[in-house]
């Protein structure tokens, strides 16, 4: 039995299939890749009742128009974006039912950068090296083009009720917890101190490989960085360019680099970096290694935590365009559903 396919119409500039990536291949020169905000895939799995994260469409800044050829539930997670199904506004961070012939329109992000569209049966494009993720920097797969069709798996529970989830806010910048890394000792104490007392702004330069940060503070440089042997680099590393501008590496970063790294952002705070839109304020806060290790839950534990936050989706009358056509029971409700939904 086939789950049909999704037809991609009028896509935004950077939409690609992303799953949890290809961990464990650094020795082959391949960084994890996968979703830059893996929490969004975990949220989608909770909303769709999946035991594990599913491959999704990762949409940078804006989405596109989508149709399916078989009924399926979908989940909308990550950066909240304008979304409508056949002109009806759809709640973000929620699951919905989608029928063939309906048009799902996903517009611009209202906050954050990367939104995710997940189908309950998963996207069944071929795996490469154990993952369906496009790794643009490594030349594995590519961004999707308008007009393409992707095969979908069968929704295992098409009649499951629509659900909603209060998102962990990671779309408006804030504090990034860091630990020292192998090259922290190359920087003097004053420079390190400045890293943790400066307010940074997410610069315009940024993609799935990493984002640059700006500030008014003097450059964060090390005079011991010259002639440094190239070394392994990974997601979360705060790499200092020659000009002393911090660059936080993300899922699709290279695996070896020559610039020194002043520290590493904890994996649990990386979605906050990936999602920061240009202009967003970010700060660094040093934590101990023990604190960091205690904050490193696997996705299984994260999924458990997200499941506990699920609530049934009750449609907001404001979102129902033909409200007058509905038979409202004397116009009286307890009103509590809306509070819960908005709470």
């Amino acid at each position, binding site marked *: 039995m086939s789950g049909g396919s999704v037809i991609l119409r009028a896509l935004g500039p950077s939409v690609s299939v992303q799953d949890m990536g290809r961990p*464990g291949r*650094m020795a082959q020169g391949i960084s994890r890749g996968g979703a830059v905000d893996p929490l969004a895939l975990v949220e989608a799995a909770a909303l769709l009742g999946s035991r594990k994260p599913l491959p999704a469409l990762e949409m940078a800044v804006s989405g596109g128009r989508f149709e399916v050829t078989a009924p399926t539930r979908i989940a909308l997670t990550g950066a909240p974006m304008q979304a409508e199904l056949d002109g009806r506004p759809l709640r973000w961070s929620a699951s919905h039912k989608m029928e063939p012939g309906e048009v799902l329109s996903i517009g611009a992000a209202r906050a954050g950068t990367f939104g995710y569209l997940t189908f309950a049966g998963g996207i069944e494009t071929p795996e490469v090296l154990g993952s369906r993720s496009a790794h643009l920097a490594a030349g594995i797969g590519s961004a999707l083009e308008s007009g393409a069709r992707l095969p979908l798996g069968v929704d295992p529970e098409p009649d499951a009720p629509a659900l909603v989830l209060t998102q962990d806010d990671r779309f408006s910048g804030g504090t990034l917890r860091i630990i020292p890394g192998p090259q*922290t000792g190359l920087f003097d*104490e004053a420079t390190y101190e400045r890293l943790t007392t400066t307010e940074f702004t997410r610069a315009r330069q940024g993609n799935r490989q990493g984002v640059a940060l700006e500030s008014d503070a003097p450059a964060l440089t090390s005079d*011991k960085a010259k002639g440094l042997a190239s070394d392994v680099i*990974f997601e979360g590393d705060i790499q200092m360019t020659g000009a002393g501008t911090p660059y936080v590496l993300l899922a699709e970063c290279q695996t070896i680099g020559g610039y020194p790294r002043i520290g590493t952002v904890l994996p649990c705070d990386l979605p906050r970096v990936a999602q920061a839109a240009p202009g967003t304020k970010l700060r660094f806060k040093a934590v101990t290694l023990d604190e960091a290790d205690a904050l490193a839950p696997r996705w299984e534990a994260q999924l458990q935590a997200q499941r506990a936050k699920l609530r049934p989706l009750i449609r907001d009358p404001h979102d129902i365009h033909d409200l007058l056509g509905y038979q409202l029971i004397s116009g009286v409700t307890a009103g509590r559903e809306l509070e819960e939904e908005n709470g």
Partner: protein
Amino acid sequence: MMLEEALRPGTAQAHRPQILPAGGNGLLVRFALVAEPRAIAAAQSFHQRVTESDLPGLREVVPSLVSVLLRFDPEAVTRAEMAQRLETLLSEADWQSAAPHPAQRVWHLPVAFGGDHGPDLEEAAKLAGLSPQAAIDEITATPLSVLAIGFAPGQPYLGLLPEHWNLARRSELNPRVPKGALCVAVRQLVLFANASPTGWHQIARTAFDVFRPDQSDPVPLHAGDEVRLAPVSGTEMDALLKADDPMGGARCEVRS
């Protein structure tokens, strides 16, 4: 805690093996800050030792030029326990004088130097104080070791060339070298996996494909393999490139 102590700003050690935290679930063992031959040999020997050691809780080992990254399973072992186990391994030998086992595999790669295939050969040779032909002779006579795979998938760092090849990167970035470009800087050669901008000098080209995502062994070269470069003419390279065979005329000799 030992790990935190080693990491206070301003405390980087140049010549003592150090165990350093490296991100979530990671530790790095580093033998030096610069790519000097003894530290490279130490990192290669230690990489071999760790790979054979079957350390409980060890999930991933990534060798680099003068360091080895170790990723552990936090459900099986704590960072401090893993650091302790590495400390014990490190205390077993004097790594700075350890010689890695001879490579099991020797790759013979056809390369075309100079001309369109190596536009920076003359400049690089001059910087090394050699004629272009002497540069080719010296590079092809040097047994090269795969020091690390990385930056891009499958992309090898090969070394070490003699000291006079300690060339700085070009001041102006070469906007694009082709896939298969063989480039030199800082006593090393890099064989590019994909077309890429680089500050390294392109001296030659090969038709050998270092990354083959559709194959079961997508990365044919492994850290520690020996590489020998076999010069061919520009016309021969054109034919090899045209043949579109991922081996590009290369052969792998396995030592018994």
